């Protein structure tokens, strides 16, 4: 039986998945003291990469290539923000601009000047036996495209890695006190570079999810600010992987509201619902009072190695 509530909850998880993937990666990046505003660029690059990859080898090739593209964009950001120690905000903004323009250009070159409508294969929801029978949340959580299940596995793995391994401790040390971390023999710049790449990889997969589990096609600018929303989600999630996943659900709900209200035949202007996630981001950031609990050295560049 699919009633209104469970359809809504399914929509919540579906829209939350790409946000959670991107926010999970950015959580790791920011734990190393780097704020990657270019995450939006990795997402849109991943979306285009997914179309290209899926054209060659199906859905999973699409995801693989999406991850590669997301990583490549993040590598450009890391080259400037980590290696050259340029301002992270400016580098990130430029990388976003580069990826938004670059994907638009490449898409038109690859698929015709008007960007002919093209369809990629998509992931169908795969029910998980037994769990999908749970009341209320069963369908919402366990009848989803398999990329959502990848997320379910990634959240505990990243949590474990961040808090329970030596490497994770090193990552967090750099974000809190780079000088001490370096004194302890950690190669801070290298770890930061890798943390940015990991964030870009998940950003790419997030973009791939938009195409391969949702839209089934590429649209210019289809990332629609999700990279920036994901950065807000990291703040809401208190720089904690599980926190980020839960905060993403709140935003998934905000986006899913529009389908819910459209289905219920409300007369409210649709732009109100489109704008709602962005307004929610502002309210949520204000409510958490911005940067409290952030890694102490987030965004700082003034350490030597």
């Amino acid at each position, binding site marked *: 039986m699919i009633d209104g509530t469970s359809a809504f909850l399914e929509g919540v998880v579906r829209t939350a998945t790409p946000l959670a993937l991107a926010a999970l990666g950015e959580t790791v990046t920011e734990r190393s003291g780097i704020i990657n505003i270019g995450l939006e660029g990795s997402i849109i690059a991943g979306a285009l990469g997914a179309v290209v990859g899926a054209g060659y080898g199906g859905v999973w090739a699409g995801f693989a290539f999406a991850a590669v593209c997301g990583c490549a964009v993040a590598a450009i950001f890391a080259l*400037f923000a980590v290696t050259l120690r340029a301002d992270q*905000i400016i580098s990130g903004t430029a*990388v976003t*601009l580069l990826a938004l323009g670059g994907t*638009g250009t490449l898409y038109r070159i690859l698929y015709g000047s008007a960007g002919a409508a093209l369809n990629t294969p998509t992931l169908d929801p795969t029910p998980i036996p037994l769990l999908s029978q749970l009341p209320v949340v069963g369908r919402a959580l366990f009848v989803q495209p398999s990329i959502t299940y990848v997320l379910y596995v990634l959240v505990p793995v990243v949590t474990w890695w961040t808090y329970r391994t030596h490497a994770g401790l090193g990552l967090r040390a750099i974000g809190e006190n780079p000088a001490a971390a370096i004194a302890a023999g950690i190669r801070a710049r290298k770890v930061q570079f890798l943390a940015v790449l990991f964030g870009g990889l998940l950003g790419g997969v997030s973009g791939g999810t938009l195409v391969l589990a949702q839209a089934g096609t590429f649209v210019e600018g289809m990332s629609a*600010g999700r990279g920036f929303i994901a950065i807000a989600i990291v703040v809401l999630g208190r720089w904690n992987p599980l926190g980020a996943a839960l905060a993403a659900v709140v935003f998934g709900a905000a986006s899913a509201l529009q389908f819910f209200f459209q289905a219920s035949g409300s007369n409210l202007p649709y732009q109100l619902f489109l704008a709602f996630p962005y307004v929610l981001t502002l309210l949520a950031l204000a409510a958490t009072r*911005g940067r*409290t609990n952030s890694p102490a050295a987030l965004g700082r560049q003034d350490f030597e190695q």
Partner: protein
Amino acid sequence: MTETMAFVVDMLVHATPLLITGLAVAIAFRAGVWNIGADGQFIAGATAAAWVGVSAPPEIGWLALIIALIAGVLAGAIWAALAAWLRSRFGVLEVISTIMLNFVATYGASFLVRGPLQEPTHVYPQTAGIVDGAHMPILVAGTRLHWGFVIALVLAVVAWWVMKYSATGFRVRASGVNPFAARSAGLIDVSRVTAVAFVVSGAIAGMAGAIEVSGVTFALYENISPGYGYTAIAVALLAGLNTLGVIGTGILFGALETAAGAMQRNIGIPSTTASVIEAIVILVVIAIAQLRANRVTGTA
């Protein structure tokens, strides 16, 4: 009119919004405020100006233009003030808040041109044309070049003078270069100075929107800004955040956008290439600045 002349006119018309939003960004960045929201502030200004322009009674003549410009300035200032308030009161990163407000402004304008402000026949997603009195006078007869370009030049010179020679400009620069030093040296209320710079930046971006409506589009459209606020970042950075330099870089990017449009029409190079070039310009500029700085400190 010769082809060259037509290109120059087009270039200056395109340069006007870029030049003014570039000033807005340069002033904010100088104060250490990462205002990525010039786009939203531009849209807010354009919306307010269009609102005045369509509802002004024709009898008031050119007063409509003055009121439209003031409305645009106020709307841009208010839009930036939201982010400035979130920053000072709640510590919300302005990079995130201004980008969110860009989206809200885009959807807000979309709602208005499909709802309360839609043109009388309710067919197109745009407002009715603004009254004649709200039109910006033409600068060169027989062309589209309007007085908004002159306003842009005057703004740039005034901003340069204020930044370089006035006490206010000194406070803004000091707050941007080293807020801690500025605070501990006393006499500078850094959070106040940056908030004011933020709002002024928004006011200028709002004026750019008002000028675009009164001088070029004569109505509010759904996608009134093709991303001016983002191009403005490249314009400001390439000028080294110097507002006189913004005149040059604004015109350069105006030429770039004009050429990109022509290339798309003639040889099919997508116009999105322009934003790729902008991004590369930003990256090259910061790379050069950074390599130089790293060499000075000997840690390259």
